[in-house]
C-alpha cells in the first residue's frame, strides 16, 4: 500500500492542493512586509477565480482568463488600500468587509450570467506541462515536474519574491516602509506608493491563486469555491515568518497533511473522520507555536501612517 506510487501520488496531490496557498502567502508577505494587513486575500482569490472562469468560458483561452483573474485581484486592492492606508481605517475590518462583499458579488454575477441548471458550465482545465528530463526523476519527477504551468509559476514566484525582498533595493524599500515608515519617508521613500504597490502585488497573486482553482483545478465555478483558502494563506504567512521560501514550505506542509488525511480516510483507518479533517489546521497551529512567532513581524504592521504626524 505504501509503495513508491502512493508517495508519488501523495506528493503530486500536495503540490496541487498547496498552490493557491503558495500564491496567497507570497503576495500576503509582500503586503505585510510593507506594513499592510491584507485580510481581503480570500475575497481577491474568490474574485480571481470567478473572473478567470468567466473569461476563459467566453474567450476559450486559459491564458487570457488567468491574466484577467490576476488583474481583477490587483485592481480590487485599490479601494482597500484607499480605505486602509490613505484613509487610515482599520485594515482588518476593511478586509473582512471586502471578503463578504466578494462572496455576494461573485455569487450574484455568476447566477446572473449562467443561471441555475443541473449541468453547470465547465471549462477545460489547464493541461499538465511535464518538464522533459526532470520529470524522469523517480518520485519527485512524477510529483512535481508533471504539473501544470501555474504550479511551477507559484514556486518560481515564491523564490523570486524572496530574492527581491532580501537582496534588492526594491525589497529593502518595501521592508523599510513596513518596519519604520517615518524613517523611510524621511529617506525619500513614498510610504503610500510603496504600500499601494505591495497591495496590488498581493491582489495580483491572490487573483492568480483563485484563478488556479477554477482554471487549473476544478474547471467550474461554485459560490465560495475558495472555501477559506485565503485565510489559511494568512496563517501560513505567519508560519513562514514573513519569508516567502519558509512560507512555501509551510504551504506545502499544509497541502501534504491535507492530501494525506484524505488518503488515510480511504485506507479505512479506524480513527474518527473529524480528526483527519482537523489535522492540517492542527499541524499549522502547532508549527506556529513551535517555530515561535518571533521578531520577524514587521514592526509597523497594521499601524495607520500619518504623513504629517510627529
Amino acid at each position, binding site marked *: 500500500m505504501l509503495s513508491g506510487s502512493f508517495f508519488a501520488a501523495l506528493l503530486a496531490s500536495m503540490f496541487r492542493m498547496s498552490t493557491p496557498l503558495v500564491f496567497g502567502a507570497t503576495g500576503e508577505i509582500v503586503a505585510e512586509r510593507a506594513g499592510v494587513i491584507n485580510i481581503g486575500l480570500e475575497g481577491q482569490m474568490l474574485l480571481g477565480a470567478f473572473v478567470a472562469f468567466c473569461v476563459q468560458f467566453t474567450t476559450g483561452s486559459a491564458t487570457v482568463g488567468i491574466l484577467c483573474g490576476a488583474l481583477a485581484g490587483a485592481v480590487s486592492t485599490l479601494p482597500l488600500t484607499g480605505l486602509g492606508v490613505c484613509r487610515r481605517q482599520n485594515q482588518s475590518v476593511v478586509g473582512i468587509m471586502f471578503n463578504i462583499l466578494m462572496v455576494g458579488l461573485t455569487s450574484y454575477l455568476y447566477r446572473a450570467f449562467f443561471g441555475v441548471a*443541473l449541468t453547470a458550465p465547465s471549462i477545460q482545465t489547464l493541461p499538465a506541462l511535464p518538464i522533459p528530463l526532470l520529470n524522469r526523476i523517480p518520485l519527485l519527477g512524477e510529483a512535481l515536474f508533471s504539473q501544470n504551468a501555474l504550479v511551477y509559476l507559484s514556486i518560481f514566484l515564491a523564490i523570486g519574491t524572496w530574492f527581491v525582498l532580501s537582496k534588492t533595493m526594491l525589497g529593502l524599500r518595501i521592508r523599510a516602509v513596513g518596519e519604520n515608515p517615518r524613517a523611510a519617508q524621511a529617506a525619500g521613500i513614498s510610504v503610500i506608493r510603496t504600500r499601494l504597490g505591495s497591495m496590488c502585488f498581493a491582489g495580483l497573486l491572490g487573483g492568480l491563486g483563485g484563478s488556479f482553482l477554477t482554471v487549473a483545478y476544478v474547471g467550474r465555478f*461554485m*459560490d*465560495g469555491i475558495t472555501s477559506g483558502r485565503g485565510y489559511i494563506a494568512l496563517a501560513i504567512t505567519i508560519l513562514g515568518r514573513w519569508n516567502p521560501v519558509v512560507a512555501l514550505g509551510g504551504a506545502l506542509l499544509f497541502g501534504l497533511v491535507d492530501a494525506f488525511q*484524505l*488518503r488515510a*480516510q480511504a485506507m479505512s483507518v479506524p480513527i474518527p473522520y473529524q480528526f483527519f479533517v482537523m489535522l492540517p489546521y492542527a499541524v499549522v497551529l502547532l508549527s506556529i507555536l513551535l517555530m515561535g512567532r518571533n521578531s520577524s513581524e514587521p514592526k509597523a504592521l497594521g499601524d495607520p501612517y500619518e504623513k504629517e504626524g510627529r
Partner: protein
Amino acid sequence: MKKVYALFLALTLTAALLSGCGGTGTTTPPAGDSGDKEAPEESAGKIQNVAMLLPGLISDQSWNYSAYLGLQEIEEMGYHVEYTESVEQNDSETVFRTYASGDFDLIMGHGYSFIDASLAVAPAFPEKYFYVYGTAPTDVAEEDLPANTAYSYNKEYEGAYVCGVVAAMESESNKIGIVGGAPSNAQIANYNAFREGAQSVKPEIDVSIIVTGTFDDPAKGKEAAYSLIEGGCDVVMHVCDATGTGVIDACVERNVKVLGYGGDQRDLAPDQMLCCLGVNISQCIADQIEKIENGTFSGVQRDGLAEGAIYITEFGTACAEETATKAQEVIQGIVDGSIVPTEVSTEY
C-alpha cells in the same frame, strides 16, 4: 455634513440588514404582503404561501437543486413559494421566525441542520406549519413533538443499498468508494447501506469511505476522489452535494465509473455515470400540504423506495444490462419487503 452622511449610511445598512433576513446567500426577502400572490385552485385551502430554507445553494446541482426543482413544481400547482439559500445553522431560527411572522403558512427546512430551529420556533407560531426534510429530532419523542411540526426522515439508505449493489457489480478491481460531506444520521446510514449492498453481491469487496467535512468544496471532492482512485477504486459514489461535483469531475477525468446523488446527474458524466440516488422533494412537499388540508399533519414520516420519495434514476450508458436488471430486482425486493437494508446511523 459628516453627521448627515453617517446617518444616511446607518439607515442604508439597516435597510440592507432587514432585507437580507439573516441569510448569507442571495435571497428573495419574505414580503409581508406580496401583490403577486397566486391563489391556488382550492382557494379554500389553508396553505397559500410556502417558504423554504436551504442549507446551501440551488446551484449545487444536487441536494439543494432538487429542493429548488421541487419548489418550482409546487409553484406550478398554484402556490406562492419563496426560499432562502445558504442558511447557516445558527441563523436558521431567525429565518424561521421571519417567515413565520410574515404571510407564510408552511415553512420548510431542507436538511438536518434545521431541526433544532423548528422545535424552538414552532410553539411560538401554533397556526403555522413547520416541516423539516432530512432527519428526525433525536432527543424528543415523537408524541412530544409540537403539533404543527412534521419531519421527513426518509430512507435514503435504501437507495444507497441499491447503489452499493450496482457499484459492486460494476467493479472489476473489487474496490469501491463513497465520498460523504458530514456524518449526519442519514449520511452515516447511507455509507453503511452502500457497503452492505455491495457486500450482498460480493462479500469480499473492499469499500472505502471518505468524509470531506464539507458539502460546498468541489476541489476537496476532487482530491477525495483522486485518493480513492489512486487507492485502487474503480467505482466511486458521492453523497455530498456541491463537493460531489468535484468527485464526478475527477471520475470523468480518470474515466472511472461514478454514481451520483440528489437528482439525475447523468449529464455531468455521460460516459461514466451508472445511476443516481434521487430524492423526490416535490412529492414530499405535496404530501405534507395534503396532510395539512386533511388535518393529519404531524409526526415523523419515514418514506423510502416504496413510496417513491427516494428513487434510483435511469441507468447510464456505462451500466451493464445485467447490473441494471439486478438493481431493478433489488429495488423490487426492498419495495415488497423481501430485502431489508440495515439502518446503521451511528457509526461507520
